[in-house]
């Protein structure tokens, strides 16, 4: 009996070892995916939590950035760290400075676009940013303004190319929000 068992063990030990190693690898791989998923979930939550504030609309305006320095990076210069590139913030301010009701949605859309440079590293984060862009678009309710702000944010060949590359790498199917567009209630803005 013992001899038989020994013989069986002789034959099965290596396949069994392979199975055990495979199982361990699978568990490690699965754990890695779960950790990554946790990170992604946190990043997606951060994107959706990145709302426009009154400070973004009414706070001090940054100075015009040096163009060379601003274009030296994809994200450009955002000295007041409000998620809107300084040159874009200034352009929108001077276009809508007479109406906060008009300026706020424009800032919100620009802020969402800027996240394509700062927050996208996989498909879920791209979708989250696209959903925020769409929400801001619902607040603007003027697709021509969308286009104008698109041109302000994606104003160099490298930025346009980077945008295309991001979409090409991470595009997937997704659904869009269709209500609660504005981060700041227009009724709460004085003019």
């Amino acid at each position: 009996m013992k001899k038989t068992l020994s013989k069986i063990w002789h034959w099965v030990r290596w396949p069994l070892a392979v199975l055990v190693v495979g199982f361990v690898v699978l568990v490690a791989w699965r754990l890695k995916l779960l950790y990554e998923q946790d990170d992604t979930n946190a990043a997606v939550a951060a994107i959706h939590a990145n709302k426009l504030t009154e400070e973004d609309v009414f706070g001090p305006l940054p100075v015009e950035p040096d163009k060379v320095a601003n274009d030296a990076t994809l994200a450009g210069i955002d000295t007041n760290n409000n998620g809107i590139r300084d040159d874009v913030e200034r352009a929108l301010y001077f276009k809508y400075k007479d109406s906060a009701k008009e300026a706020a949605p424009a800032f919100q859309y620009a802020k969402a676009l800027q996240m394509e440079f700062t927050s996208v590293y996989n498909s879920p984060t791209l979708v989250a940013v696209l959903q925020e862009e769409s929400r801001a678009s619902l607040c603007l309710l003027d697709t021509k303004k969308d286009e104008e702000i698109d041109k302000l944010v994606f104003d160099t060949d490298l930025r346009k190319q980077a945008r295309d590359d991001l979409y090409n790498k991470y595009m997937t199917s997704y659904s869009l929000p269709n209500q609660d567009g504005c981060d700041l209630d227009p009724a709460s803005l004085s003019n």
Partner: protein
Amino acid sequence: MKILGAIALTSFFFLPNIVWAACIANGATVVYVNGIFTTNQQAGSDLKNLNTQYVRITGDGKTNFINGYNPSHVAGLGDLIQSAAQMMGKSISNFDRDTILLQIHPQVTTRKLLLVGHSQGAFYSNALYDYLLAHGEPKAAVGVYQVGSPASSVAGGGKYLNSSGDAMLGTLRGLGFKFLPDNIDLVSAPDDAQKTYPGHSFSGAYLAEAPERVVDDIQGTLKSLKADAASDTGECFTATDAGLDYQAAKAGFAVADTAANGIKTGAGAVQVAAVAAGNVLASAVQGAYGIAGKLVTDIGITVGGAASITHAAEPKSQPTNFDLLKKLYGSSLTKEEYKELLGTLGSAVATAPIVASVPQTTLAQADSAVPLLPSSGGARHHNEGAIQDTEQSPADAPTVPDTSGTGDTTISDPVATTTSAQEEATSTSEAPGLHLAPAVSPVVDSFDSYDGSGWATYGGSNNFGSSPGVIKYFATTSGECRSSGCLSGSEQIGNGGWGNPIRMYKTGAAVSEGSLVIWKKFHYGLQGVGNVWLMVCAGAPDAPDAKCEGTGDISRDGGQDAWTRYFLAWRNNGSVKEFCHMRDDTDQSHCSWQPSSLTAEQAPDTVVISGDAVRPDQGDRLWFDDLGTP
């Protein structure tokens, strides 16, 4: 205990794959399917704009909008073959349809479902409809709506929107394809007018110019749907099988697409490929299959170890396009079909290469050249004085030319690039015993002393505002004409700043077989010209039983400020009447004769001239001169 542990462990592995299904009665889902050569970014933008316009106009916040992305393959080559097949009522593969189905399956949770297809996406919307009805969706719950559609029908009897100003559709019609007729007249906005095919973009043309119509059609279709057999637990339809065959194709496309996209020449390649698509379709419809055998071996695009896709005229071109695409699209594609569908792709690629061996800047390369974020945040300035010092007016705001469109790319003229195909096609399509069309026209007019007599107008009220029937074009001797007087779009007629169109015709003698020429010139002031056609009709063009054939849209043929001559000929071939049209060429041995809707018994007796100088007040101009015989 061990069993419970095993179950828990198994769940641990599969938990993320468990999806709680539902197919509820409330709400509805709109799936947008993009067209050929639409970039990922543009498809996303189209969906966002559709969603925004829908909510803006309807106030409906309960309808979900999702994208069923129709990807481009092998730098456009795969799409060329597929679209050529679809235009001819075939499909070489269900891979893209299945990809869309797999994408949307987990996101479709409402019983009411509307498929919105744009351009080539119209074919997929029909295919998706058929699949859905065969796999669980009730007929009453699914609708289809098409925009810029080259399809011959809308599945389920749905609505569609095709513009007379859609240059892509105009080109396809000019090639002889028959599909859904135009049902709206839209004029391209300035940005869109600069594109290779103005008037065809979903966002830039249809949604920009007729948002209410698009949204009304969608809303109306949604209202007509019924949420039969809704369920809070079941899925809306059975997903397609993503089995080994699908996965193998997916892996193949991943390699080929990456290789192709990695070397194609930037944004311009998309537009160039769009032109090539037109050429391929031209070749297919012309039946120029005889030369395919030579060209298929000459042309092409090949994957060399997934490292390069190059013009296959080079010696290293192995395997052939066919071998590559056969592997990618599966066994349903035969070499004969491939030859038939592609026809003269060789000339298309030769004259307008889809890809070239110029490296494209990748994101990784961009990253190395331009860091994503600044290395330092820079000084913070909250100084209003500094703001004043550097104040920038909106007009000075940083802007760059929009190169995401098609305006700045140098591409081959679609008409010009088909010439070689047409020439070679002649030798294969010419039946023995056919003859040349005589130089006889129903109407001739030098326009030297034009006073409108004998000419009539037609068209919608938008064309002529409150003065229907009044011909606004007049003869001029301003020196802008080719000879003496000519028709000139120099008179501003209003319509809110838009207008000065011609929709004019004159009836003369019936000519069973004949030919004519006319000269055309245009000038870009602000938006250029559109809807430029030359036709002959059996009967007045606005008569219900009129039969017309002509050049298709020739708005942007030739360079601006140069006179271009158009030749139109017709002859009988058996029971049908064939037509030929060419630019700056009246040699009928160069003709690629196309069958028409006219029978041999129907004799054209009317010449129709159509064209819009969009903003004559801003310098857009259009001239015609010397309508006569070759």
